[in-house]
């Protein structure tokens, strides 16, 4: 079957099977910036935005995206670059496999929460696992990134 999804602002018609997960559909369509880490909705590396809200594309049927807007990290590249700068300055990027999904969630959080507390930040991002960094540096980067806008 064919689904039509707007991916990063561009309408794409994609051939899928009814049981296909969105992550595979996106990757097969060349959106390899969406990573695959666990298949069970636990790690967050497959995060994309569905109409602006973060979802796990490994646990989301491609067919359900029909008619919706999907944003990958490539769709917010400008903002991602800004955040990457803060992250890189902390050395908070290691293997980078978690980075696209993590950054997308941070960007969505920034749009959604006004002046989040440390606890709110950790809670919002709890589903984005990172095995490399120990998180501390990511949080230093997030605080600097959020504060930069207030300055």
């Amino acid at each position, binding site marked *: 079957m064919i689904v039509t999804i707007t991916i990063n602002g561009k309408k794409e018609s994609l051939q899928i099977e009814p049981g296909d997960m969105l992550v595979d559909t996106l990757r097969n369509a060349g959106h390899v*910036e969406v*990573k695959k880490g666990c298949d069970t909705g636990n790690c967050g590396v497959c995060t994309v935005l569905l109409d602006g809200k973060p979802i796990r594309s490994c646990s989301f049927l491609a067919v359900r995206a029909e008619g919706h807007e999907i944003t990958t990290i490539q769709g917010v590249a400008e903002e991602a670059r800004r955040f990457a700068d803060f992250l*890189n300055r902390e*050395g908070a*990027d290691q293997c980078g*496999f978690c*980075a696209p999904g993590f950054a997308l969630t941070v960007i969505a959080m920034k749009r959604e929460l006004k002046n989040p507390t440390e606890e709110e930040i*950790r809670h919002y991002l709890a589903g984005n696992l990172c095995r490399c960094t120990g998180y501390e540096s990511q949080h230093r980067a997030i605080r600097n990134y959020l504060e930069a806008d207030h300055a």
Partner: protein
Amino acid sequence: MHEAPMRNAPTFSVVAHPHKKVDGEGLMLGRPAYTDDLVPSNALHVKLVRSPHAFARIKSIDATEALKLPGVACVLTWKDCPRIPITRAGQGNPEPSPHDRFILDEYVRYVGDEAAVVAAEDEATAEKAASLLKIEYEVLEPILDFEHAKDNPIIIHPEEGIHEMFPIGFEPKRNIAAAYHMEVGDVEQELAASPVRVDTVVYTQAQNHVAMEPHAAFSYLDVQGRLTIVTSTQNPWHTRRLLGLALQMPLRSIRIVKPRVGGGFGAKQHIHVEPYVALVTLKTGRPARIALTRREVFESTFTRHQMRVNIRLGADPDGTLRAIDMQVLSNTGAYGEHALTTFMVAGSKTLPLYNKVKAVRFGGDVVYTNKVSAGAFRGYGAIQGLTGLESAIDELAHKLGVSPVELRRKNMIHEGETSEVFRIMGEGTEGVAMNIESCKLEECIRRGKELIGWNDERLVWEVAPGRVHALGMAIAMQGSGIPMIDMGSARIELQDGGFFKLHVGATDIGTGSDTILAQIAAEELGVDMEDIIIHSSDTDHTPFDVGAYASSTTYVSGSAVLKAAASMRRKLIDTVAMLWNVSPEDVIYEDKAFRTVDGSRHLTLHDFSYDTLYHNGVRMQTIEVTESFSGEKSPPPYLAGFVEIELDKETGKVDVVKYVGVADVGTPINPNLAKIQIEGGLLQGIGMALYEDVRYSDKGHLLSHNLMTYAIPSREDVGSIVVELVDSYEPSGPCGAKSAGEIGIDTPPAAIANAIRNATGVRLTHLPFTPDKVLAAIKAAEGAA
């Protein structure tokens, strides 16, 4: 922004600065970079059919139905593979791991072991075909308890032809993969003469690496018909060598390419997926791709070696440590990858911490069981040994009624000292004698105490009824590469435009080694980071390196880069001197330009690069150097770990409120990246201490096979992690550096065990310290009291 003070910072301009990771932004933007992002669109999809039994013999495989399915390209079984015993462990040559494994075998030895290979045009078809294979098994009784493996009537490796590469104590008929023993002085006599003794046991569990990128590889035949494998690996050259053996191919016919790797931690220091895509490509002539599911990563790659560590200590009443006896039983699972070496490291990278003892002994066995194979994992035995040793040292402090910190300070190793253990114990072979030229443990401890607020009089306090906070600590050491075994090399070539190509075999698996190696080159060549274009790990195009493991990259590969950069500097000066007809001593190279001492001649590096490639007639030449480095020693980094826990006596739940790690890694080439290595290591160690655990059913089925049943720490799970690097300089290291990759993980299990002991008065012996175990221990102690 907080930064650790850097004694040597003024003398460096690129090194010891927190440069951004060269690939950071590109990876965040999701540019195609990891193996499975790069697969050719016409690749066949490979699925492995895995054993549902912990131990079985394959009686028959019927592929008729599977092969009927449209789109199925091939089904391969053990009968299609060369009968060559191999090891999957990426290690030096000859490997200290036994060759006890076949790509595919008639026997399967754990649930998840590879039984057959299926390849098809798409993933769904491959999966379908895999399910249609009819495999008849003769189910055998497994061994699941590693304490009953040795000399069990069930023999896990009864087959002929398997062998060790050199003596490692390999006795498969007794289920022993490796064994070792050493003694300095007379331990029994020294223990008997010691007025104060402790005798402890700690069981450390199997842990999963959970690198975020699951193992993946693809292969194809290039235009010359050579087999190319792009793979998420930590050791391209070992992979090529092992594959050459497994497939009976000359190494010249194989090329291994490592793209970006999404985390390793030891998980990718092996050949797990490469043989299978290679087989399919060789059979069909088609590109072939495999990407393990997370479940497969859990079921069929490697874990940390489960160990039982028995420690006996003898001391004088004044706290002088006289003897250490460490006896270890290690579980290597179904195959013996890294069996001997992880086990030896349990002693070799812990016992030298207490180098003043009169007698020290280490020994034990590594046994086979019908569980997922164990392999390399950050900490590599040291974390297991250290958990035992540092628990015992704390027990001794309790027994003596002295401060655990002061007891350690009294007995631990200091700068300028040595330990017999360095000379005796290597990794599978004899060790290398070594004097410690940099050891800032005293400073690590001093600063760590400050950061945690250590007070010997107040190691536990109540915060609410039934809830206490407690402190605990441990110290650790690691190594920096394997001396006389690990080798790295670097090639530098001047390009038109005045920048340099830096080619290294060193394998950046996400640690940032490309960045720090470029920093070292830029520092020595007096250029900016942007002037170094680094390319790493391609067996056709970069010089050799053993790979990213054993905390070797900064020290070993970094030294190779430093040597190459120094050679390049000399070669540039020599070449310019020749062109100018002056002696090299009269040429000064500074600020990317050459001039004569008397100032009569001047040439920028930029202009020289054009001259040498385009303008100098018969004297035109490529300016290029290659250098290699192998360490004569392995200077240990050190770390003092301090933890504050909260323990709920009602539920038994332990939370880390704060973890402080103060480390001596020599000069951190990139302070940010070094610090994050340690922060990440600490969290992985905290996960191991508190809940990460590979669990099986009583039939040997893996119960922890996804990220729900095997949880790793999330960002909500730990209070704060504070890492500082102390001023230190290792004279033998590149720009004063030692390693930073593994040392972070070592202390948490011991420090947390010690904090729980301080909180409850009970010594927990079985990791991880889950609420049920903590509660049971508290109850047992109350019952006994």
